[in-house]
């Protein structure tokens, strides 16, 4: 675990750049991580997914599977991949300041 300066805030991240403490997150951090992860601008649809991931993680302690993300976030699978081409669950977790999802689905 290392400390990293993102959007002028010091945050703890793992080797892949996922925040290890969700409390250190804010929207400016999200926008900067998004830019560095190949998502230049966050639209309302991106935010819908990011907030859903984050809320689910904070409520249950685990990030949702891609299956439930597609069913419950309000954004269907095809659109999820259009919004986050390099992996919706992984990227939305990273941008949303929660640990990397560990599930296989």
């Amino acid at each position, binding site marked *: 675990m290392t400390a990293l300066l993102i959007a002028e805030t010091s945050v703890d991240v793992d080797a892949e750049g996922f925040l290890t403490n969700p409390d250190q997150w804010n929207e400016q951090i999200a926008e900067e991580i998004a830019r560095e992860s190949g998502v230049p601008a966050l639209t309302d649809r991106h935010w819908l997914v990011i907030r859903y991931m984050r809320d689910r993680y904070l409520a249950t302690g685990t990030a949702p599977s891609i299956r439930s993300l597609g069913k419950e976030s309000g954004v269907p699978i095809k659109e999820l991949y259009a919004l986050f081409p390099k992996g919706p669950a*992984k990227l939305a977790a990273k941008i949303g300041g929660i640990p990397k999802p560990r599930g296989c689905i």
Partner: protein
Amino acid sequence: MTQMFEAPQIAPHEPKTIEKVAIVISKGSLEGIYPGLIMANGARMEGIEADLFFTFFGLDAIRKDRFEKIKVATVGNPGLHMPTLLGAIPGASALVTGMMKRQMEKIDIPPIPEFVELVADSGAQLYACKATVDMFGLSMEDFVPQVADIISVGEFYEQAAGGQIIFT
């Protein structure tokens, strides 16, 4: 005098990532189909390009008349630790299949029809093997709409160029 050896120098390198996979699904049992679907979905989740090629009985996973009826093989399947004759009793396969499906639902693994749709929606291309299609006398109409094309093995290799091929 002891001789000193220097530790071998390992050249630092960038972590390598897989960019593309082509997964062959060749078996028609539940336990034959799921691994390929899980690997394809997992690849897409990591942003890895994925193609699926269904061949022989693996075609059952994309056949409209069969993909809802995929069963666990209870005969000749040592992994089940079940006497062969017991596995042969009528209904044994349906029973074991039902148990396994409930177990999978618990950990959020979708049933095969939903999984095929999920994998296709995630951007994986689905192909049917031409030799098998010809052998069984099938056509595009027999397949779910997510199937992109019926292609030969040569076309599959062209499609898979530059990636890793995984045979299941």
